């Protein structure tokens, strides 16, 4: 197992290094997330709805859209020069390959989320206070689940026609349970509610992560192997 983990980290490291050298995708995703936040601010009537009421949903829709942009990129980069074929020829267990890709995607989406969060606080005048650790926790918990499904689907979508359209159509239904749970927890966190009110949702998120990370890891070889 440590060997597989080392391989997974090597694959994730390769993706992260490639991204840090070009930085084009990350920059675009960050600008995209900031734009979504700004556009959302004008999608509400300030006299009818206070920014705080809308804040949790705005945050999560922004995260979801940004993740979608990021995930579309995950396997399109492997497609250039048939890099994916090279990767598949390497003696790497498919599970390690999937985990490596997942870690790289999580690093990418996590960076976008970490940069979006202060912008969100700034634009929507939210006082995070001591809700910050909880918010980071729920963000991590929700993100792992849908990025896992997204990693699997993006490997599939690149081989289809209309790849950019296929990923959102397939992935959005799977994003719904984690998004509902995350929005519920976020609004309770921002309203300073006790943990007992969020417990059910947190368990749902944890269960979703366990089920779908395992399942995606197991089915990944059916997607990439001929």
């Amino acid at each position, binding site marked *: 197992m440590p060997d597989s983990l080392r391989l997974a980290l090597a694959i994730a490291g390769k993706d992260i290094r490639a991204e840090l050298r070009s930085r084009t995708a990350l920059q675009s995703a960050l600008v995209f997330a900031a734009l979504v936040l700004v556009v959302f601010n004008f999608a509400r009537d300030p006299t009818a709805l206070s920014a705080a009421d809308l804040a949790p949903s705005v945050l999560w829709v922004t995260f979801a859209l940004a993740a979608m942009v990021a995930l579309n990129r995950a396997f399109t980069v492997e497609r250039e020069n048939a890099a994916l074929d090279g990767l598949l020829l390497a003696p790497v267990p498919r599970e390690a390959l999937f985990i490596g890709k997942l870690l790289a995607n999580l690093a990418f989406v996590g960076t976008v989320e970490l940069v979006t969060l202060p912008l969100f606080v700034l634009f929507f005048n939210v006082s995070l206070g001591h809700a910050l650790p909880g918010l980071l926790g729920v963000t991590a918990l929700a993100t792992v689940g849908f990025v896992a*499904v997204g990693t*699997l*689907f993006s490997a*599939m979508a690149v*081989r*289809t*026609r*209309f790849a950019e359209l*296929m990923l959102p*159509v*397939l992935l*959005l*239904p*799977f994003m*719904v*349970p984690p998004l*509902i*749970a995350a929005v519920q927890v976020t609004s309770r966190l921002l309203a300073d509610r006790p943990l007992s009110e969020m417990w*059910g*949702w947190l368990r*749902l998120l944890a*269960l*979703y992560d366990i*089920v*779908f990370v395992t*399942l*995606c890891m197991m*089915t990944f070889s*059916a*997607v990439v192997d*001929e």
Partner: protein
Amino acid sequence: MTAEAAPAAGVVRRGLILSALALIGLAGVFVLALGLTPVEARQGLAQKIFYLHVPAAWSALLAFSLVGIASALYLWLKDARLDRFAAASAEVGVVFSAVMLTTGPIWAKPIWGTWWTWDARLTLTLFVFFLFIGYLALRAAVHDPAERARFSAVVGILGMLLVPFVHLSVYLFRTLHPQPIVLKPSAPSLPPEMLTTLLVSTLVFTVLYLGFVTTRYGLALADEAREQARDSS
């Protein structure tokens, strides 16, 4: 892989006979529900749609569960019949979901006072419906049959596991939807006449599902035979 035209025609015929029988049964369900079952005291005639809505929901659930099971078996056995069945079942499931999603609002307008509400069960059934539309879109977007079968099997398995999350969220999100009255831990709380009508209707919808799937399966066989004939000529 020798799919010939003759067995395909036989399968289609069997499917059509089964569907015809189910449609006659459906006419019987209308008579039974409207003429022979007592009118519900508080909801009045609007409650009659229950005898279509619930069986349609049952058939949709059955269809999608079988897509999941067939998908899992496909990845294991790699049998083309399982893939063909999953595709047929998904298409038919989408049709039954459409029935469920249209009869629901027709009932909800007089009873809840709104066509649609963002209740947990409604929202997530809608998303399961979208999921299977995505499944069919994916099938249409992959050209290679083996690759199409593998990809859609993966989506089918993941879709099957999304359904329990649908149910989990029902109990977490405050819900407007009537709680289960037949399949629940305690005894069904439906009067016996209404329960009979519901069960008859569920049976009819199950046969209708089988008829549609068999027909669709036969058409897929015929399609493959035609493709093969075209490729070999």
